[in-house]
């Protein structure tokens, strides 16, 4: 119920939905990303995911994907930056 209300709110106020991407950078060691639609780049220095009309690029050192499923990804390593372009 709460999520539905929140969804209605952001849709009205911001023109987006909760189904859009979202990510959390946890202490620069882990990035939790939802709403991804596939890998664009994958190497130790950069991991980037396809989003809806955008790309999320995570840069860092010794990066790897800890978990990866149809919408979620968990990238670990020394995170330097997370950029959505």
């Amino acid at each position, binding site marked *: 119920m709460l999520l539905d209300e929140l969804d209605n709110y952001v849709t009205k106020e911001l023109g987006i939905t909760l189904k859009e991407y979202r990510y959390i950078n946890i202490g620069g060691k882990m990035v939790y990303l939802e709403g991804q639609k596939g890998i664009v780049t*994958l190497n130790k220095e950069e991991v980037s995911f396809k989003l809806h009309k955008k790309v999320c690029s995570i840069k860092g050192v010794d990066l*790897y*994907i800890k*978990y*990866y*499923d*149809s919408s979620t990804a968990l990238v670990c390593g020394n995170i330097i930056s997370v950029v959505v372009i």
Partner: protein
Amino acid sequence: MKILIRLHVIGYNLDQLINKIYSLNIVCYNIYKIDKNKIKFSIHYKDFKKVKPLLKSYEYHINYLGLANFKNWFLKNLAIILIIPIALGAIIFSTKYIWDIKIYGGDNELNSSVFNILKENNVEVGKRISITSDDIEDILINQLPNIAQVSCIKRGTTFIINISKKLVYTPESFEPIRARFDGVVTDFSLISGTMAVSVGDFVKQGDILVYPFIADKNGVQTSVNPIAEVNATAYVVGSSQLAASTVVLARTGKQYTTSSIMFLNKNLFSKKSIKPFALYETSVYNENISSVLPIVKSKITYYELDYIVVENDLAENREKVEQESEMNAYNNLPENSKILDKQTTSIIVQDCLYSTTTLTISTIIS
């Protein structure tokens, strides 16, 4: 339960591979891009079937982790895991049966009797033993009177029977000593046996001299090998005769000689048989022509024979005839004999001279 496998993939467009896996809604764990062409990641064991077609164009290795490792080992060795208990079961099952029966110590006849008795008691190749080895031993001892001892044992799938035959005493039969010549017994020395003759008895050739037994006071006879030396005065006779007129077959002096070439004992040029005289004898002389081939030159001489009446002067030939009779007597002389006397008599009966020589000898006739 999460059963993971770790894939090491080598190839190009590895990001594309991950996206293809992603499109199959397969969860990946710990995706490491080692370099441009190498990636390693983990997936669920159950998802590997879906991923496998995607890996066709890549080189990949699989590491089974945890339970997946055990599951993989189990599936790989499933045949062995199943076969070992089955084989063990089969071996244990087959040891209950007999697959070979070996009999030692008996001859063919006894062995076949043993086999028949075993068959009657359901102890056969390919069958399970229903009675104990001790019972089989008892049966064999009772049913076969000519065996002294029997032991049965089952070694693996072989049933082994050892038989000891009874040693039956059979008294040996000995032959009596018989006279080798006619004569009068002069003396004897008896080592074993019983004398059948005494000194002064006249015996003929073949008469029993010593019996092959000894008798005790009660008259019970025991067989023994007779050993004795019996000396006797024996007589050896030789004779000869000559008629006043005799017909002999002799050569007339006529002869005929022919030659032929023989190859492998066959006449090369003529197959005719030659008979130049009504009665004849031949002498053949063969000469090898070739040292390599078996070609022989054969020279045959035919001598004519005819019956000729020869007149003999009996008085003139008397000594010769007597010598012949003596020679014949000496030819009949046995070994180790001593000549005691020699007597030659001649008589003319119906124009025929008969001469007989009798040698009186002392010899061992036993």
